[in-house]
């Protein structure tokens, strides 16, 4: 009764268009809608495109920010490839980023106490330990969601959402409580770390080689794992049909928990990079919502990691390019989110239309 494979309904032949028509039709509609929304705000779509392009790539600084965003986004998206392929909606990725960032901050503060003038260990080692701690923090938060889902039979969506807020709550508590700035506590975050604990950057930009390297490495590993390993194959098998995979001898629970583990690991690394590479302190919205953006990226590419890089790059450029809009055109930078959201929404609807109505 509740088949997951949509049945084709009988329609006049006229409706039976190739799947491609539905998909590209949906894309065109989303582009038209984006144009319409820009017009609604009283701006010219052409000008907006131009400004965003300029805003994303015209200076090394801007390119650096695109790369910094891309690094974090790649880590999140790479992790989400595992959970999506295992059939899980890991909305908890934001919390995993946040908790990773908390763990990193914890270790950095431990190794560089506020009253100290230098790190107890050599700074590169401190940073490395901080990043490692971030990964572990993400894993902890990911496995918590996984355990709630696998053993507690709680929907991973609500477990994840709940844990997102719990992680944010912990972060805010720490920022205002034990880790507050000397003097006044504020939402602007903890006391920035000493510059010796900042990740090295490409020139004077925000982009860090370590961050970009980790992001690309995570994606590369993910592509290899998903395409060339038994683990990736088992994961997809579980995601597509848990029962049949079980009958064929795939340990489903173990696979699901592994997916949460790996996603938590990558998300935790993303959180660590946000701390040591981007903000140099813990702030309440340390993830910059890049975890949620990662969900959109992976949904748009239909869970295939091979396409993650171009889409993530495009989305990062949109994010940074849109920051120019308030200055140059008096528009809000959230246009980036509107574009991203509409593209993904209509990709989903187009996919649905094609599945339901297209001639096979």
């Amino acid at each position, binding site marked *: 009764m509740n088949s997951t*494979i949509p049945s084709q309904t009988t329609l006049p032949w006229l409706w039976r268009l190739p799947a491609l028509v539905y998909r590209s039709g949906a894309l065109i509609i989303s582009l038209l809608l984006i144009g319409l929304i820009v017009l609604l705000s009283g701006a010219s779509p052409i000008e907006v495109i131009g400004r965003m392009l300029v805003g994303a790539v015209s200076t090394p600084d801007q390119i650096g920010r695109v790369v910094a965003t891309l690094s974090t986004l790649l880590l999140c998206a790479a992790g989400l490839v595992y959970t999506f392929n295992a059939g899980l909606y890991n909305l908890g990725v934001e919390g995993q980023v946040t908790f990773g960032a908390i763990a990193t901050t914890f270790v950095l503060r431990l190794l560089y106490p506020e009253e100290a003038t230098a790190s107890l260990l050599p700074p590169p080692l401190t940073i490395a330990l901080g990043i490692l701690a971030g990964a572990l923090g993400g894993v902890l938060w990911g496995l918590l969601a996984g355990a709630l889902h696998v053993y507690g039979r709680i929907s991973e969506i609500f477990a994840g959402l709940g844990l997102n807020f719990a992680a944010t709550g912990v972060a805010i508590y720490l920022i205002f409580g034990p880790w507050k700035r000397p003097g006044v506590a504020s939402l602007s975050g903890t006391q920035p770390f000493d510059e010796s604990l900042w990740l090295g950057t490409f020139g004077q930009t925000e982009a860090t080689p370590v961050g970009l390297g980790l992001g690309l490495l995570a994606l590369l590993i993910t592509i290899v794992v998903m395409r*060339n*390993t*038994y*683990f990736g*194959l*088992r994961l*997809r*098998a579980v995601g*597509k*049909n848990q*029962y*049949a*995979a*079980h*009958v*064929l*001898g*795939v*340990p489903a629970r173990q696979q699901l928990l592994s997916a949460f583990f790996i996603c938590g690991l990558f998300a935790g690394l993303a959180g660590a990079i946000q701390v040591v590479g981007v903000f140099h302190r813990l702030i309440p919205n340390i993830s910059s919502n890049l975890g949620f953006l990662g969900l959109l990226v992976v949904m748009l590419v239909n869970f295939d990691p091979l396409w993650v890089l171009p889409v993530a790059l495009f989305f990062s450029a949109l994010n940074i390019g849109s920051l120019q809009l308030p200055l140059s055109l008096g528009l809000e930078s959230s246009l980036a989110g509107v574009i991203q959201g509409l593209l993904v929404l209509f990709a989903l609807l187009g996919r649905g239309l094609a599945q339901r109505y297209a001639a096979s």
Partner: protein
Amino acid sequence: MGLFACATAGFGLRVKVELQHIHKRFGPVHANDDVSLTVEAGTIHGLLGENGAGKSTLVKILSGFITRDSGVILLDGRPAHIRSPADALRYGIGMLHQDPLDFPPLTVVENFMAGSPSTPPILNPRAAEREFRRWCARFNFDIDPHAQVGDLTVGERQQLEIVRLLANGVGTLILDEPTTGISASQKTLLFQTLRRLADEGKSIIFVSHKLEDVEALCDRVTVMRRGQVAGELDLRPLHAGAQQASSHHPEIAARIVELMFGRALAMPTKPPTRRDEVVLSIEGLVLRSDRLEIRVDQLSLHRGEVVGIAGLEGSGQQLFLTACAGLEPPAAGSIHIAGHNLTHRPYADFLRAGVCYVPADRLREGLIAGLTIQEHVALRASGRHFFIDRAEVRAEAERAIAAFNIRGRPDTYVERLSGGNQQRTQLALLPAPLSVLVMEHPTRGLDIESTLWVWQQLIARCQQGTAILFASSDLDEIVQYSDRVIVFSGGRVSPAIPVAELDVELLGQMIGGRF
């Protein structure tokens, strides 16, 4: 106005139901092929047939659950326009589904009120409760109106549905396998109730697997086979001999079995492959599901032996097979594989011991839609290495495709294969040394050539020492290829009988629950 007239048709009037030349196709399957059926008012009409014979389709058409491709439904000689369950209800046609279609989290009274035309816009639970109690009292049903429906037994849920349908003015009552999963006393009460309703003039269609139930209850029976009416028999002579309902007419039973399965049984064709060593042994096994409890006191499977499970579908075969494969834990009893006690051990241990399960629902349980043939091959080989050697997997898939004559390429998605090729793929995926092969409907939906080919492969397995336990709804298949046969009937399991000792009548009786 027309609808209004029909609405009254259900109340108290005697309605003759006629289905004429009904056709229904599901893709390539002709589920109902020119089916005609007449149910006289005031009678109980049995509808018998194997699973897939088309009886379910037919009654679902009458109850509006599915729409027919062509054909006419006449109620008292007037054409009825039934396109949805709502239409059917307006004509006073109600159906009791095999799995009770009710609302488990709601209370009995709420279920009684839901969807009833007499329920006022503002609920009046007290009035509904009084009404409900009145109906219950009429039929000696004892159901707590405030209980949650999910806590009731299947029999009680059935009683609730009958009462609800009658209260809604149903004049034609369809019951789909109503005696599965209910107690003996509930069954007696059900039969009394149905008899009484028929005497009041209602038309009752009783869809069943069980010969004995049909014999005990029905005035006439229509047997369906492969989407067509195979024949119709008058059963009143059975009841005419006064009240001793137990009087048994073997010639009528034999006639019915013949109609259901064909004139004579096929000849056994399986070469002897059985060895002395016991590979699977079951002691005192008890299995429970929502609807059934199955007990298998003792069963041993020898190396190279084939044991076929006959019986009408839904009698617990699937539960038994999945338990033997280690997918369902038994409530009691033990399962030994090659001398090792594997009761309550994880499924992985069964796999390691060389037990393999091939489900009937290939695309939902056996294969993974969205993965290719070579990915399935790789999945089976999973665990040996970390990286997939694509060339090797491809070569292996090509070998399997050639050896099993699969019409597909290594990168063909399994959902794109035909049914026969999906079954070949399932067989190709079986690991090489195999102790026990548990199969559900090994050749369902296959053409004759594929069926023969599949059994060639299976017998070759037996020659290598694999024991096969399979269930099938094709009696010919069971007789042709089994060494011994067991029969399931409503959760009861017959002893294993060597195939040479079988004949149509004995099988018919066993399937009807007499053993």
